[in-house]
């Protein structure tokens, strides 16, 4: 646990450097006037919060009628608190429900967002907690996607169910669920091929997979997680909207927060969809998965309190 926290901190610290620089430059002046608030708004935009959310947040700050003597840090603190308050309700750590055996998690998202890696990290973590995990290699399309997942599975000591290349992912998921039930697994994690949300056929394939799973267990999947890449800009909103509309998304994971992108679009997504953020990815190793901490995220975004 301590190591995740540490990694998140260093990840976010790196993430923040540039934003802090720009805000530092903006607010170095010690006095809060219209111009500094404008610059603060721009810094938020540069962190991918999007122009409308940035404008709204700064409008709220402006309303507080700061007098000329207020410390710049106080304003930043207030802004960070506002952002953390938006995010607080969506911070719900991933946990499997022990009354469901196996607890079935389906992982979906656009290409390259980090689905397979995140499943590897989850498997590792569940394994460490002493749970029996089965992984379904539902990406039967991309070259060596199965081989990639199998490596993660063997690292985590999980059983990996695979099918032939190009085979039906729905059938494979069904088979994996059957297997997980047979061996009395605690959790089944289903990987899926990356798909852009605007591809109707691929989205229909996902719907079919869910339908087929339900023939085996009417309550499955118990969690559908959408993986978002922190590098993504405003299109992430579109991704959430359409995935949510077509398959019932229960939670989000934001990956690659260890990079220079700050993932600020998450603020807009939290406001709009109120979907739980169950974890964040802060690197490529098995333990680079952390719980989403809104205060830390917001603080790091603004470079305060660290």
């Amino acid at each position, binding site marked *: 646990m301590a190591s995740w926290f540490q990694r998140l901190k260093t990840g976010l610290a790196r993430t923040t450097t540039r934003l802090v620089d720009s805000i530092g430059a903006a607010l170095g002046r010690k006095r809060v006037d219209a111009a500094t608030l404008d610059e603060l708004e721009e810094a938020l935009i540069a962190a*991918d919060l999007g122009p409308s959310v940035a404008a709204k947040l700064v409008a709220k700050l402006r309303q507080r009628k700061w007098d000329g003597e207020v410390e710049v840090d106080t304003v930043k603190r207030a802004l960070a608190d506002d952002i953390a308050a938006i995010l607080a309700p969506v911070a719900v750590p991933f946990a499997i429900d022990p009354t469901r055996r196996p607890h079935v998690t389906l992982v979906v998202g656009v290409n390259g967002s*980090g689905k397979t890696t995140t499943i590897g990290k989850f498997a590792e973590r569940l394994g460490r907690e002493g749970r029996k995990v089965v992984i379904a290699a539902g990406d039967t399309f*991309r070259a*060596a996607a199965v081989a990639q997942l199998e490596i993660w599975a063997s690292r985590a000591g999980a059983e990996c169910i695979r099918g032939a290349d190009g085979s039906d992912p729905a059938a494979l998921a069904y088979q994996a669920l059957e297997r997980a039930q047979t061996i009395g697994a605690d959790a089944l994690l289903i990987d899926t091929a990356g798909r852009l949300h605007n591809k109707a056929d691929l989205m229909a394939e996902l719907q079919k997979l869910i339908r087929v799973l339900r023939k085996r267990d009417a309550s499955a999947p118990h969690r559908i997680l959408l993986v978002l890449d922190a*590098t*993504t800009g405003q299109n992430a909103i579109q991704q959430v909207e359409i995935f949510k509309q077509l398959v019932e998304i229960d939670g989000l994971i934001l990956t690659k927060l260890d990079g*220079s992108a700050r993932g600020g679009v998450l603020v807009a997504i939290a406001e709009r969809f109120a979907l739980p953020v169950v974890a964040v990815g802060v690197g490529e190793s098995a333990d680079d998965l952390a719980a989403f901490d809104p205060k830390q995220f917001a603080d790091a975004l603004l470079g305060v309190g660290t």
Partner: protein
Amino acid sequence: MFENLSQRLGKVFDRLRGRGALSEGDVDEALREVRLALLEADVALSVVKTFIAGVRLRAIGQEVIKSVTPGQMVVKIVHDHLVETLGSTASEINLRAVPPVPILMVGLQGSGKTTTTAKLALRLTQKDRKKVLMASLDTRRPAAQEQLRVLGEQTGVATLEIVAGQGPVDIAHRAMERGRVEGFDVVLLDTAGRLSIDDELMGEAAAIRDATRPAETLLVVDAMTGQDAVTVATNFNEKIGVTGIVMTRVDGDARGGAALSMRAVTGRPIKLIGLGEKVDALDVFHPDRIAGRILGMGDIVGLVEKAAETVEKEEAEKLARKVQKGEFDLDDMASQLRQLRKMGGLGGVMGMLPGIQKVKAQLDSARVDDRVIKRQEAIIGSMTKAERRDVKLLNANRRRRIAAGSGTSVEDVNRLVKQYMEMARMMKQVSKLGQKGLMRTGIANLFRR
């Protein structure tokens, strides 16, 4: 939530079109909207500022104020400026070097490097008749080398043997050596994904560059990238030296503002775009096409290409003849509905049509979606052949039967019949007026629930 760039500009320009002459204030008002639209399209803030300043400089002054149609003039200035910033012409991959010509692929994790390597290899093999070798220098991501090997099999392009335990620089040397010995024209070097702020891995990439002296170093980036595009492009360019940019996932619905950002901050051309997961989904970048699409002027070329893929040519021709003769029947309507779905729903194709933004908003408000289309298909599917030919056969009894058969209600059937009549009538008009006529009447009416 937010309108897209085309819609926003559309609104602004509609307003501008309504006036005879433009004041400085008008231009500034328009540019405020342009600024917001660009930011929502993920163009980096710093780039937006420069862009706006550039447009303003050109817009205010005689060019606009004294021109006869000021609105059009502003559209043109914004468009031209976009094309200029994106780079006015398509630029090809540089192979002017002593073979084997090394090409280095770099970028963030998951941006599409490995897939693009295979796509480019296939393109160089087929189009340029080059003998290409691919090598994966990715010793970090699980099964990364295996991925490229499989792609080599799929494309029929040679790949370097995988030797366990060898580091990236050594693999690069081995690839170049095999390239020389076996007379390859081009050696494509795929690398592991890396963060642009990861000094250690950026150093590794620089070492690979020094070991191979690539003729091209292509930065592979995702079209969905946000404001970070500037940091990524700047760092990769400064630390490794980028000669060109490849933008992937252009088949998505991201507005692709990152293209503008990266081009602006690095000055490097966008050379190729990825349009899908398959190995042939690669195209050269046409700045004017992208700019036109951004401005809602419609990617006509793209539309035609996409339509050609999905619409069976014969069926299209048959339909055109029928429409002309006024013989459009329910079977034709069903096949139209099918095609709409095949093209990725209304969003996909419609988004590419010129002037479609308004219609699209209408469609959205009419809540037309794939489900509605599917229901309509089901209704038509429950009719007999005779009924599909001649809608007049559909008396109350038959309508009840069809409703039961398709799991809908009689009202649904009635609505569909009404839509069909409307559609047939409009089809007739369209054949007289051409496409513009359809736009004016409003496509939304055709598919209202």
